[in-house]
């Protein structure tokens, strides 16, 4: 179980770095969603299911979608 936790931590950090380094805005937004999903697993493992549910529903679901809609909308305005 501890190895799975360490793997999840590693994926969180890598996804965070990928979100910063990526030159494509859409993939950066998806990487931020991946960070939220992994962090929600870590919240669950640390005994906070309420926080984990919020993080998964709002962090990984809704805010990723809002980022994607905003990127799409601003690209339309630019070009």
């Amino acid at each position, binding site marked *: 179980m501890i190895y799975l936790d360490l793997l999840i931590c590693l994926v969180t950090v890598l996804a965070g770095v990928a979100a910063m380094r990526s030159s494509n805005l859409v993939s950066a937004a998806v990487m931020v969603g991946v960070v939220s999903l992994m962090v929600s697993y870590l919240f669950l493992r640390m005994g906070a*299911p*309420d926080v*984990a*549910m*919020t993080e998964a*529903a*709002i962090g990984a*679901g*809704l805010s990723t*979608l*809002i980022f994607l*809609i*905003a990127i*799409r*909308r601003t690209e*339309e*305005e630019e070009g």
Partner: protein
Amino acid sequence: MKHIFSLVLLLVMGGMLWTLIPLGQPTEPGEVANHYIQHGIEENRGANLVTSVIVNYRGFDTLGEVTVLFLSVAGAGFVLRRRDGLTPMVARPSSEILQTGARMLFAPLIVFGAYIFVHGHLSPGGGFQGGAVVASAVMLLLLADRDHQLPHGFMSWLESVAGFAFVLVGLAGLMVAGSFLSNQGVLPLGTWNRLFSGGVIPVIYILVGLKVGTELSALLDTMMNSGRPAENPGGEH
């Protein structure tokens, strides 16, 4: 000079983070936390102690959080004004399979969201989580069917009534027990771990769920249906 300044700033920030490490270690709960753990069940009869803290002991903070969410949605609605005759966000209509699937999933998702916020005092989750699930059901419908119109009048009515009722429940506590949002004597507390238990806690969490669900749905709808007009030959762009 600039590089030295950045290095010093980085070191100072690192040092500040270093002092945060001991805060992550498990410690004995303090006086207030001990009171919640020992007397939380008898005072509120909520099986989920987290909900008792969020809605009752720190209920005033929750009212503030709901207000912050309302203000941000209102701000987004003000900046991104809805205009008629816009370019649809989705360029071409989605396939029959996607539309039918979204319509089939819509009702179970709404019921699941309602389940989460109705059972907030018994199991993990509550108004905010259930409201987010309701909003994702609405989002699915909006993405699958680009011509779908939300009932805006009903939604803003529901949202206002839920916010107003939250304050009314708080004022009832003020009148009966002498403190805002108090849970003593307003509604019967009931038996521990039953659906009808916890006094005003489930009532408040259902109101929060309705409010968060309608607000987030309205935010998604505003973002998808705002922008420049569809045909704009004389364009200001």
